[in-house]
């Protein structure tokens, strides 16, 4: 019997439990992070406000967005009705933005875990929380959760537009992306011209130019009369393209412009538009760092760092990735990471959808501008090069230099269009006119026109012959082919260093003139020699011999 032992057991377990419960109570009522932070906030407040301030949990509830964001329990200055402590990183008031945090909550833009009340958990840097906060550096990426920025041109076009805005001194009266609006022709008391930073979302008067001219001619204010000069029509177009993209998310639109200059959609789909070779990126920004392999990633285990490292060396970070190393600049990498982080989709009720998203998802509005240069930058540049110079990546067959004047000098528009439309499978060139996320016919025409312009305006040879006119001897051609062509183009035209000639779409679309002239003239700047002229090591081929080779190549059309 353990009478005393049992009493001791009861006594000491009770006392120990009491201590443990006491500690739990103390921890909960005094040590919680938000309590400590709010007490600090109270100390920062002026005495009058401090007396009113109560240390308590705070949250912003937005039922329609399923948000109960407790971020304001620590970022107290951002809570509705709080004054905040100016200049304090933690306690400052939220910067003035279009979407009032009191109305929209925090996480809808910034990500993270709104229900949490502890720093690490709230910022989402904990296991088992799939959506960490968007880093502050990329804060505007949060816009992508709801918005789809439309008609974003390639980067060069944006830069051009900005240069024009500078050159024409628009910033004298207008504000744009936080700059300008310093001269006040209307006298003291404010900026004359409206702020243009959100003009793409709010819409602007398409007759702005005549209005400005009329204003200049009638105004009595000296500044008006002297400062507005005439602007050339193409410059006005460039300025308007810039203005359309000004939706209050300048950095993000510039980042998207980089995406639209690097040909990323050639392989990747975003919002259902793009190629199929790479993964769909529509929601890539929501990726869970906990599900990513960081084995070969140097630095922090964050989504941003993973993406950046992946852009530097794709195949190292993702084993077996078919994505080439583009040798991107750090600036471009930063922009692309920014854009990737913005690729997210919050499950908003449709009533909350912004106009741009409705237009993109319901009416098929394009996220890129429809000019040929931007289309080329968006879909083609990764393989064919920004200027059609053709890219060469380690471990991959060289991509054709379609800007080559020799090529453009013999390839007709119809050939270009057919190639873009039908692609060249099984090679990597997709059928842009046939695939689900491809180009529309008008867009293909724009691309053809742009490609044409890359060759310095060389217009294709037109000898008036029909598509098929060669009547050479295929047997002679076979011997000649084996001697002169098979080393690069493969014994049976399967390709190698040179193009695969036994490609059904190529043979269907290419005219005999195209083939003959390509052999005769060659293609300067590539390994394809002009066989019409000889060299020290080999003789020139006669026209009949070239035609015989073409006849041999044509024989694959029947039996590929």
């Amino acid at each position, binding site marked *: 019997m*353990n*009478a005393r032992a049992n*009493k001791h057991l009861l006594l000491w377990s009770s006392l*120990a439990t009491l201590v443990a419960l006491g500690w739990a109570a103390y921890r*909960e009522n005094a040590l919680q992070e938000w309590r400590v932070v709010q007490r600090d906030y109270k100390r920062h407040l002026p005495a009058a406000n401090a007396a009113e301030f109560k240390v308590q949990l705070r949250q912003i509830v937005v039922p329609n967005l399923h948000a109960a964001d407790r971020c304001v329990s620590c970022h107290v200055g951002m809570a509705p009705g709080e004054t905040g402590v100016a200049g304090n990183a933690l306690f400052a008031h939220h910067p003035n933005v279009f979407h009032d945090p009191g109305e929209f909550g925090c996480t809808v833009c910034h990500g993270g875990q709104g*229900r*949490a009340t502890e720093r690490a958990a709230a910022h989402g840097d904990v296991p*088992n929380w799939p959506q960490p906060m968007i880093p502050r550096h990329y804060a505007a990426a949060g816009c992508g959760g709801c918005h789809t920025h439309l008609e974003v041109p390639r980067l060069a076009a944006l830069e051009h537009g900005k240069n024009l805005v500078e050159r024409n001194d628009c910033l004298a009266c207008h504000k744009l992306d936080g700059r300008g609006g310093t001269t006040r022709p209307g006298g003291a008391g404010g900026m004359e011209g409206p702020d243009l930073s959100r003009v793409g979302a709010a819409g602007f008067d398409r007759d702005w130019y005549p209005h400005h001219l009329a204003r200049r001619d009638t105004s009595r204010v000296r500044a008006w009369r002297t400062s507005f000069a005439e602007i050339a029509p193409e410059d006005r177009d460039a300025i308007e393209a810039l203005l359309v993209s000004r939706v209050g998310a300048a950095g993000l639109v510039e980042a998207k412009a980089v995406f639209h200059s690097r040909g990323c959609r050639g392989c990747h789909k975003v919002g259902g538009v793009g190629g199929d070779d790479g993964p769909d990126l529509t929601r890539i920004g929501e990726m869970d760092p906990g599900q990513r392999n960081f084995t070969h990633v140097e630095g922090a285990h964050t989504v941003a760092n993973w993406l950046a490292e992946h852009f530097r060396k794709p195949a190292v970070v993702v084993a077996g990735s078919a994505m080439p190393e583009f040798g991107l600049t750090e600036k471009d990498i930063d922009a692309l990471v920014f854009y990737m982080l913005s690729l997210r989709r919050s499950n908003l009720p449709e009533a909350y959808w912004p106009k741009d998203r409705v237009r993109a998802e319901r009416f098929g509005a394009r996220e890129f501008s429809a000019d040929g240069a931007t289309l080329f930058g968006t879909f083609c540049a990764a393989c064919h090069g920004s200027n059609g110079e053709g890219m060469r990546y380690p471990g991959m067959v060289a991509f054709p230099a379609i800007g080559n004047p020799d090529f453009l000098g013999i390839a007709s528009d119809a050939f270009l269009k057919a190639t873009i439309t039908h692609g060249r499978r099984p090679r990597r060139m997709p059928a842009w006119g046939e695939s689900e996320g491809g180009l529309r016919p008008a867009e293909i025409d724009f691309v053809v026109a742009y490609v044409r312009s890359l060759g310095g305006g060389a217009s294709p040879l037109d000898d008036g012959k029909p598509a098929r006119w060669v009547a050479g001897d295929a047997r002679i051609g076979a011997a000649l082919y084996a001697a002169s062509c098979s080393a690069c183009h493969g014994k049976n035209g399967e390709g190698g260093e040179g193009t695969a000639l036994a490609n059904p779409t190529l043979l269907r679309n290419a005219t005999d003139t195209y083939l003959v002239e390509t052999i005769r003239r060659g293609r300067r700047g590539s390994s394809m020699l002009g066989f019409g002229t000889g060299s020290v090591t080999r003789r020139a081929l006669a026209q009949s011999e070239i035609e015989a080779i073409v006849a041999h190549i044509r024989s694959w059309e029947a039996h590929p």
Partner: protein
Amino acid sequence: MSVAPAPPTPEATPALRRFADNLRHSPQRFRDAVVRSGAPRSDRSRSTFVFSSLFLHLHSVRVHRWSLRWSATMGLGVITAAAFFLTLVTGILLMFYYKPYPDVAYLSMKDIHFVVPTGRFIRNIHRWAANIMVVGVFLHMARVFFTGGYRPPREFNWIIGMGLLAVTLGLSFTGYLLPWDQLAYWAITIGANIAQSPRELTDALHLTQYFDPGGLTKLLLLGSETVGEEALIRFYLLHVMILPLVLTGLLGVHMWRVRKDGGIVRPADADQRLQPLEPSTYPVFTETPQKTYHLAAVVRGRTPAVGNGPENTVPAMPHLFYAEAGAFMLTILICVVLALLKDAPLKELANPAVPENPAKAPWYFLGLQELVSFSAFMGGIGIPTIVLLGLGLIPFLERETAGTGEWFGGPGGVRTVLRSTAFGLGTVLAVEAFVIRFGWIRQWWPHVPQLVITAINPGTVLTLLYALFSVALVKKYDSTRAGAVALFTCFLCGYVVLTIIGVHFRGPNWEFFWSPSQWPVH
């Protein structure tokens, strides 16, 4: 002549005085009304105190000194009951905030974790108490088995105890789904498909279209084909209502039977083996007893008093209650400290499109999950059924009396247990090592019919080996007790080893890893 005034009759005093007196005496009378026996200071008032209380009268009024030795029970039953009480209290508290609807449930868990006052602490206690309850049930069962506590007259209570084991596991399992996180979702998906696994057998016999107990069980459990809102509300109902009621009922019967079966099992010669009472201890039955307990209560079989006399019993109040209260507070202490040290897990929101890898059931089912990885039916239903049947039959097949009340009593004593442990561990480790190294039938002959694997898999092989070993010991000692000890010990070893393998050594795709740190990142 003056007549002394008669003591005022109640009627004689003015009503208002009486009212004032009544008012003054109300607290005292209220106390008397609650505790009729007065302060439990004498033997009699203590007895009255016990049997006039609904809660205390589950105990007998006097309790044998043998039963109060720590080594007799180690307090395991009380600890388990205390853990149940804790889950009950904390569970009711959690219900203030928990909302049983998909996704919303997860958010309410987050609320409990982050903003509900004491919410996280209460949830941690709930989780830890549930785990302690499961461990406690197993250990308590082992204690009862190894001290021969299942023997007559306690056969029925042994079976009630098995019911309690099943309900406890059911409670834990149903509670697992409620957080609606990835862990919950996929553990329950697996569990529900185990319930469906009789189809493995009916499919192989082409019976499913006529007779589909597996499909029916799963449908009853989930109310749908997959884990969804219907399943959540069913699991919620089971977890907060049906199973707790069943458990409370069974627990009441269980405790009452302990008393009616003559208290905790003890050896026949317990009286002789106890130290004499210390002189300072309150004397017990120094006078000739006026009545014996078998007269006071009609109890079949051995009663505490028969043949032994009551000399070695002490009043339950306070001796037993100190012990019980001590174990109770100890349980609370353990739960509270664990709750302070480690938070209950909460993973990502349930995502029916992305399975957890590995998707693991609650730890106490991982032994089964290891078996399930060969044959869902055998591992999830067949072998558990065999084990439960076997356990239930023990008191009826093993009816010896030698060694009752002794730890590891019976022929061979501890040596039988050690030998069985060695065999149990060796066999399960060998089978698992073989399977991990060489695979099983499906890896060798991919086209082998499922029925063959259902019949021959590591689980059934182990069961067979254990049964053979048990038969061998029955023969060797010419004792059914030896066989029972062998079987029980072997199955316990198998369960523990398989559970450890399932918890620690199985990783993504249920492959073997020496440590979770070697898991490939998925």
